[in-house]
């Protein structure tokens, strides 16, 4: 291992900067070639096709996680509900399920805030989100105004609940 690769030792009460060029980075020829590829429309088109081709398998994976999150909800296992909802929000966008991703993100925000405040989540808030997630993900055309409207309404509900928590915290 090259000593050039080791970071400098910390100095008491000081910080030390290591400038680009003083640490290992891409060689200039590799960097130039990489930048050319990043700007090449043919490369972007190929990469876009890769994402489009994977949408169906992502959609199937989202449906798998919906089954898991429903089971976690029945068991009132809030940590698992968060974990599965987090997977759904991460995968749904690449499945072409934008509204599903937004709704799952709202549920994650809610559960994360409640966990940090050491408070028990309200069952109906979780149930509303899970029903909306399931309906949106199974819809023929998820990218509808209705899906967006439901996502927005639920986001407002989460904002209201989080404001209540913050009010209780600061009271």
């Amino acid at each position: 291992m090259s000593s050039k690769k080791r970071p400098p030792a910390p100095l008491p009460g000081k910080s030390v900067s290591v400038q680009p060029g003083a640490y290992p980075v891409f060689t200039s020829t590799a960097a130039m070639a990489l930048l050319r590829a990043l700007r090449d429309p043919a490369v972007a088109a190929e990469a876009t096709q890769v994402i489009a081709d994977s949408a169906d398998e992502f959609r199937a994976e989202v449906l798998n996680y919906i089954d898991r999150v429903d089971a976690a909800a029945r068991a009132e296992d809030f940590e698992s509900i968060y974990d599965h909802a987090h997977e759904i929000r991460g995968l749904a966008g690449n499945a072409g399920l934008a509204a599903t991703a937004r709704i799952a993100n709202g549920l994650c925000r809610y559960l994360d805030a409640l966990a940090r405040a050491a408070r028990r989540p309200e069952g109906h808030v979780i149930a509303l989100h899970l029903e909306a997630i399931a309906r949106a993900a199974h819809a023929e055309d998820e990218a509808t105004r209705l899906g967006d409207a439901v996502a927005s309404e639920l986001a407002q509900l989460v904002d209201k609940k989080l404001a209540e928590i913050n009010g209780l915290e600061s009271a």
Partner: protein
Amino acid sequence: MAAFEQLRALVVEDNAHMRKLLRELIAALGIKESYEAANGKEAFAILREHQPDLVLTDLTMQPMDGIEFTRQVRLSPASPNPYVPIIMVTGHTERHRVEAARDAGTTEFLAKPVTVNNLFLRIAEIVERPRPYVRCATYFGPDRRRHNDEKYNGPWRRETDAQNDLEFR
């Protein structure tokens, strides 16, 4: 062979579908040599063996998540390259989680869903505008100051901040 085809990438992601997608996107870009791991622990072993030039990692994984993995890469004496660029690919939007990843030494963030534009922009940022690395008692990693805050009126602590320090006084 294009010069960058000698580059190596490592994709760390517990979801097999996302892992495959990221590797295919990297390959479409021309980086044909890539490795994969399902968690930070596996990833660190692969990092030591293959010494990738670029890492894309998820945040939430077991038994070692992307934050701890990044911390290991930056600070462990066993890390082969503490300067390797790390892109955190995450669906997390909660501020405290993003800040924890930044404070572990993440180079760039890529929010899910993964899009070509966003991925390519993050890689271009790393290539075109490599940031200084900062070492202090509590942190080693890319400079977390991405812009000059004209309203900042606190103390300037870095050795390279001498000029700012004079202005502050």
